[in-house]
């Protein structure tokens, strides 16, 4: 490509920054964190203006958002879904549950925390975190995504 190469790389970085698609995976969350994630799409926070979209299929996604402590029944599905997301990808743990197990820690039904199953790039603490914190976390996740230079 020669001269064009740096230009193309810059364009790709810009596109990745402006078009992050999320896949939301509920790994046994109490639904608290899920509601806060969905709240980010509402008129008050409106993440779509940053090009962010909640996708239905993991194959379309750039960022995997996991809520919940990873129960035994969701473990396998989580690993499969993580493997189906094309590179570059970032994993974000939303809430205290995926980080530590939270109130479910020590339960025999729990296989978490999340980083035992898939590599986690970013934690958003809180039980549940406020939508503002979720938006900030996703913004930081997008920077991590852009920094991944693989697969241009």
């Amino acid at each position, binding site marked *: 490509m020669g001269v064009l190469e740096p230009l193309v790389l810059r364009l*790709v970085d810009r*596109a990745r920054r402006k078009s992050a698609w999320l896949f939301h995976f509920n790994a046994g969350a109490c639904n608290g964190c899920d509601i806060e994630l969905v709240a980010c799409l509402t008129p008050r926070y*409106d993440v*779509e203006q940053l090009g962010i979209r909640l996708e*239905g299929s993991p194959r*379309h996604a*750039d960022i995997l958002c996991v809520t919940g402590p990873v129960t035994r029944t969701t473990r396998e599905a989580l690993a499969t879904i993580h493997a189906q997301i094309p590179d570059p990808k970032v994993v974000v743990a939303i809430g205290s549950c995926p980080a530590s197990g939270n109130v479910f820690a020590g339960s025999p039904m729990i296989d978490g925390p999340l980083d035992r199953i898939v590599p986690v790039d970013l934690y958003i603490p809180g039980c549940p975190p406020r939508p503002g914190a979720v938006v900030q976390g996703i913004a930081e996740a997008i920077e991590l995504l852009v920094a991944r230079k693989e*697969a241009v």
Partner: protein
Amino acid sequence: MTPTRLLLALLVFPGVLYAVPMGWLMQASERKVVARLQGRIGPPLTQGFYDFVKLLAKAPVPRAEPFLLTLLPLLAVGATLGALALLPVWTGGFTGDLILFVGLLELAPLCAVLAGFASRSVYGEVGAVREAVLGISVNVPFLAALLALATASGSLQLAQVAGGAPWLVRGPALAALLCCLPVKLRLNPFSVANAEQEILAGPLTEFDGPRLALWELAHGLEWVVLAGLVASLAVPGRGVAFVLVSLAVVPLLGTLAAATARLKINQAARFLWTWAALAAAASVFAALAIRHGRL
């Protein structure tokens, strides 16, 4: 029509050079209209372009049978581009043939149905079945309206079809085509086939990276060609008015999408078989009456 003009139509206007950015613009502005009506700001108008570049730069997960899954979106893009090139945008332009136009236009939805089955995902299959059922329901009024126009103008050449039919036929035919537009573009309340979240992403569930980018491109081109069809029937043979009327279709569809929720598939089919079919039937009767000199 010389080969040079045909090439120009395919590559410049209303082909690649016009249609690709226009498709991105139309998709983004539809999302923008929906967002504004919901009290949000919505994505920038350049969103389609960035989505496309980002998808192209992703590394697809290796999987079995990549050939068919790449061929189908490519075919969809190519066929839709071909349909676009046939649109009568200038007077004395390419006098495309109606049958060829419909054939090329219908190839992209057909590819989507095949893609749903070929991807061997449950969600893909459910989406493909829905796409096929809606495709049959929508094409009855769609084709009937086009046939009425052809009958009234006594020609199968697109340029004559667009200009030759009197408004008595063109009015109801346009109404029927407009009813079909949200179905063909899979917008609310007819977003039954792609049904995001409900059946993940319908036929496109298993597509990733560059292949998904091709589908998005095909979808953008479908926007341009369908809006363009309405425009070229409403204002035949005028280049600038063609673009303006095409763009005017977008807020119309966006408002409808924002104001409605997704129908069930039987409700969607019933709507098409009553209201769209009624408008199409009106245009057919008007066309036959004119043809036989009763009007």
